[in-house]
């Protein structure tokens, strides 16, 4: 088929039968059923909050995550989590401390993926030593230098952080990580708002225009659409199953990584932060976060609505990046059908995280 004709046919198929077109950007395991086995033998962030060990060689030497800028020495940390889990909020909380500065989003994973390609294929020159080791060292140096470039903004900060909603992958050995976890049903509500508003990554890449296009038009015209008709936010089965599957695979990857870190297979320290706990007891939780970085909580500025560090927002903004920041709001949006779709795709992972005792919710 000539190129122009093929393009026309593609456009028609995209509208008439979007499922017929191949989707290339899938996460590993996207279409697999939810595994029955638990990954951890405890509830993450509830029974335990910290993983890894400060006694790991990389954690003790601090070499891999330390960078010098002029006469100052900084250390690098990371804040990660599933999108719409509160990374912006934790960013604001951490920035209340004068010795910590965190910015986002850097998205080093795009560089890391390319780097893995550069060194991972056997016919690539950098897959062999000594080129491979040199490239690996350069990648870590790149991460440190890029983060250090921000240090001018807060010269008193010892810790420089990257806040990126992404998988828990360790790019600098030994570096401290915060992993924020939020009730995925609230995540889903928040994510659906944002994706529909912005025609976001999932909406575009997985071709939801035909199913959600008219809803999106209405939402753009009326920000209160889903407040008035909450059942419409999660009305599409493919939409709900897709978002839950993405969340589930993301979370299972993170849980498996926590297990690997705890076993010392990957050297790092992780503090798990539960969104709801910070909401309930922000002072105790943020103190623990500062202490995780060996910082004195007493030096931190008070939480404030002005810099977004206080839990929740005073007013809901359905079109905003920071929409509401509420806990348990999902109950307003989940229809019986949406609950069933969620339970079928991610119910076990929800239970493993301790957000439900069983699938009877």
């Amino acid at each position, binding site marked *: 088929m000539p190129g122009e004709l093929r393009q026309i046919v593609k456009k028609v198929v995209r509208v008439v039968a979007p499922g017929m077109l191949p989707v290339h950007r899938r996460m590993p395991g996207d279409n697999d059923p939810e595994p029955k086995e638990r990954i951890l033998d405890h509830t993450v962030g509830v029974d335990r909050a910290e993983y890894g060990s400060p006694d790991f060689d990389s954690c003790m030497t601090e070499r891999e995550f330390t960078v010098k800028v002029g006469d100052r020495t900084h250390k690098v940390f990371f804040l990660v989590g599933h999108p719409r889990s509160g990374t912006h909020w934790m960013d604001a909380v951490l920035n209340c401390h004068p010795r910590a500065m965190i910015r986002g*989003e850097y998205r080093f994973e795009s560089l890391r993926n390319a780097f893995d390609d550069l060194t991972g294929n056997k016919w690539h*020159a*950098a897959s062999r030593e000594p080129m491979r080791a040199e490239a690996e060292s*350069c990648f870590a140096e790149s991460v440190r230098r*890029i983060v250090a470039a921000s240090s*001018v903004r807060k010269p008193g900060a010892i810790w420089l952080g990257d806040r990126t909603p992404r998988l828990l992958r360790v790019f600098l050995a030994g570096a401290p990580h915060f992993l924020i976890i939020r009730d995925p049903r609230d995540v889903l509500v928040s994510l659906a708002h944002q994706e529909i508003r912005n025609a976001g990554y999932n909406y575009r890449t997985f071709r939801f225009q035909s199913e959600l296009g008219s809803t999106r038009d209405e939402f753009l015209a009326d920000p209160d659409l889903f407040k008035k008709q909450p059942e419409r936010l999660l009305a599409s089965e493919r939409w709900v199953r897709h978002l839950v599957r993405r969340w589930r695979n993301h979370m299972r990857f993170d849980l498996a990584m926590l297990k690997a870190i705890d076993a010392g297979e990957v050297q790092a320290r992780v503090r798990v932060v539960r969104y709801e706990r910070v909401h309930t007891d922000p002072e105790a939780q943020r103190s623990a976060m500062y202490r995780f970085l060996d910082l004195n909580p007493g030096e931190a500025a008070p939480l404030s609505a002005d810099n977004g560090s206080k839990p929740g927002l005073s007013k809901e903004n359905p079109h905003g990046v920071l929409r509401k920041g509420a806990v348990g709001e999902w109950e307003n949006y989940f229809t019986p059908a949406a609950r069933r779709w969620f339970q079928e795709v991610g119910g076990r992972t929800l239970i493993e995280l301790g957000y439900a005792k069983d699938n009877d919710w």
Partner: protein
Amino acid sequence: MPLSKSSPSGGLLVRQIKAAMPSPLKAVLRPAVRAIAPDVPDALPPAPTDPLAFCDSPLPNAWTVRSPKTGLEHRFFYLCGCWKSGTHWVQNILNLHPQVNMKGEYHFEVMLRALDRFTNPHWHVGHGPKARRVASRAMQNLVRRTMYATTRDRPEALWLGDRTPRHLREVLPGAPMLWLLRDGRDVLVSWSFHWLRVKNPRVFNARFKDQIEKFAPEFALHPDRFRDPETGLLGDDRWVRRTAREWAGYIRNDTAQFAALTGAGTPVHRVGYEQLHASPHEGAAEMYRFLGLDPALAQPLSTETKTLPGFKSENLKSATRKGETGDWRNYFNERISRIFKEEAGQALVDAGYEKDLNW
């Protein structure tokens, strides 16, 4: 004492002024402010004990480094072009010169694309001018260090090269490049045999995995059967169309890049596979001279070094199968010609291989 952004008081003052100033005014004043208030230094380079630290301080350009141990200046260069266009052959020729060391495919283009993604969406921190500059420099350091690390087997080499079949694109700003072109019809034939002999078809395109896996066992036993253009990948219209389209994409992109790069002062030497085939000694000498090297110092082209055109005998199962020009005539039938013309006929004319579509 100059106002320094790195001092606490200076930093606060600068931030307050910046916050109060409209963006257009900031853009106008930025060069002057940078001159009197030097930016905070970037992260310090690695400790002096690092044997390759000098690769982070190239002089006088981004593609030249001086080894403190030997005092030698080493320069980096790149060989680009579509796959199956003779990059292996040209690498072998260049390596005949004692001052050249070219070591395979690095595929830095994956890092360049990642850098684009890292720096381009406006909500990424890497989009900011300083982060972008630091990220770009860090990537250049990675390139120089990784390539320099290859020189241990030939430390006297002054030119260190990367031979990656890829689009023409600058890796280190201003670094010399060799641009290799070959008739797309020969590329198609060569590419079609190439994928029947590789062990891991997933690396190319999942779309053709089934066909490749279907033909590969038979090809391993009876490669001669695949001389029939209705057999194997050449018998698949989709394969022919896609390969022709990709080759045409190379011609379009690289032609535009060639003009842009040479216009900006980057030295790019165009090497025609067919011209090199016809006059290999002259072609080799031109390449050496392009790098400022004396051709007389190079070893002669020879069959043993696989630097003379073509091969003694055709080996359908080898990465270097035949090395012929015009071999496509033995494989192209009406169907293949028609599809190729639809997808790459104009590119063939633009690249100078045909005057029109009447072939």
